[in-house]
């Protein structure tokens, strides 16, 4: 049998490697199962993978779950400022009742998680450092994720929406003055050439995005016990790799920015608390108002130590 896995990244990206580990393990297990990977949006556009997955027209995907937040508002919690503090906290969150609740919602769409994983990100400013809410007031900013846009708007930033491919040029010409995105995007879009200061994910970070490997549940259930076992084993191997690499990416991005002469700033825990207080009044509030059972899910997530 053949499974089709689609994702949006290039073959050098960590998320492709995660998918490749699963595929390689399954192939080596010799259980008459092959995973064919379609990288770089060569099958579906990034934001248009969840629906084919839930209808079984796509078997697997590596997907930032919040992309499907328009259909399942609960998923917006997987990209919420200040909800995840660091990578180890993210790993604990993956094993918590909160993720069980998210898993139940996925099951309603016939979707299941194969590999859990979070990636972190930070801020960069064209003219100065952005560590606390006051720093971003009045700046034209592009943020990755709707909850972040709400929070930054609450801090007085002006939000500009544009495709990620336009960000480099917009920073260069000055259309944008600040940007918030993942560590790997900061490097792959070469933003270090255009910014003065970088605030990476460190001991504390605001920006964590849940980007699991998902699979259609019926397709999984239709596999033989050996095939399922091979998939599970490959997934476990990939998950361990994913967590290690996620930590390394942050450090690697700092290295690249430093080498290019960009100032590196750190967010203190007071800064973090200030952001989180702001997020409670903006993005958390908006989330609870627009999501059925929103408060319950938020409390579940916040209760993870």
């Amino acid at each position, binding site marked *: 049998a053949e499974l089709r896995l689609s994702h949006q990244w290039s073959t050098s990206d960590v998320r492709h490697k995660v998918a490749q580990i699963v595929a390689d393990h399954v192939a080596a297990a010799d259980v008459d199962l092959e995973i064919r990977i379609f990288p770089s949006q060569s099958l579906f556009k990034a934001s248009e993978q969840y629906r084919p997955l839930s209808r079984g027209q796509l078997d697997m995907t590596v997907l930032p779950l919040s992309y499907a*937040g*328009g*259909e399942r508002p609960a998923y917006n919690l997987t990209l919420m400022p200040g909800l995840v503090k660091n990578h180890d906290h993210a790993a604990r969150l993956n094993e918590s009742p909160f993720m069980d609740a998210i898993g139940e919602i996925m099951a309603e769409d016939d979707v299941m998680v194969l590999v859990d994983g979070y990636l972190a990100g930070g801020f960069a400013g064209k003219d100065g450092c952005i560590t606390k809410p006051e720093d971003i007031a*009045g700046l*034209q900013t592009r943020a990755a994720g*709707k909850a972040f846009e709400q929070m930054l708007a609450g801090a007085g930033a*002006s*939000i500009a*929406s544009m495709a990620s491919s336009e960000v480099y040029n917009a920073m260069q010409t000055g259309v944008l003055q600040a940007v918030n995105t993942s560590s790997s995007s900061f490097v792959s879009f070469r933003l270090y050439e255009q910014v003065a200061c970088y605030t990476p994910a460190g001991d504390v970070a605001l920006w964590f995005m849940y980007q699991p490997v998902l699979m259609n549940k019926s397709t999984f259930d239709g596999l033989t016990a050996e095939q399922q076992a091979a998939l599970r084993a490959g997934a476990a191997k990939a998950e361990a790799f994913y967590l290690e690499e996620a930590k390394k990416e942050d450090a690697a991005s700092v290295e690249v920015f430093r080498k290019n002469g960009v100032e590196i700033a750190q967010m203190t825990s007071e800064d973090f608390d200030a952001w989180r207080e702001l997020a409670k009044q903006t993005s958390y509030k908006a989330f609870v108002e*627009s999501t059925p059972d929103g408060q319950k899910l938020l409390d579940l997530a916040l209760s993870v130590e």
Partner: protein
Amino acid sequence: MTAQTETTRARHGGVAALRAIGWLSQACGLVASLMILASVLITCQMIFIRYVLGGSTIWQTEAVIYLMVGATMLGLPYVQYLRGHVNVDLVPLALPMAARRVLAAVVLCLSLAVLGVMFFHGFELWLMAWERGWRSETVWGVKLWIPYLALPVGFGLFILQLAADLAGVVLGVDRPFGVPDADAGEDA
């Protein structure tokens, strides 16, 4: 594109239904044009807000995208009416009139079939977005049934115009493929 199709349009040959469909397609063209004009103005407004006033621009990019989708979908029947969808007409031109008519009818039937598929599943998609209350994943959070509505409406009206064209060819009131008929001595 410009000079070539200046005077070409679907002919109704006095058949009331065909004339009505032609009007409908032209009305679609008017709406599509206004949507494009609105995109120009909204984009300029967005630049003004951001560059001159330094303000937030939340809804403009998305609004413009959906206006463009709407303009494209509503433009389909209009451009079909104007014979503006570019094609390769070497083979049809080389055929004698009778064969050309048959080929035109076959081509129109095939087009109707595939656009019927697009219409049907487009309608399903719209219905799902409506029933489940899907929204776009942005701060603006548009109800997705609104932009998705362009699919069934656009393909539906496109199908109507193509059906009118098929009728025109079968009834013999219109030229197959909209190409000038050398025997009749028309100039395009």
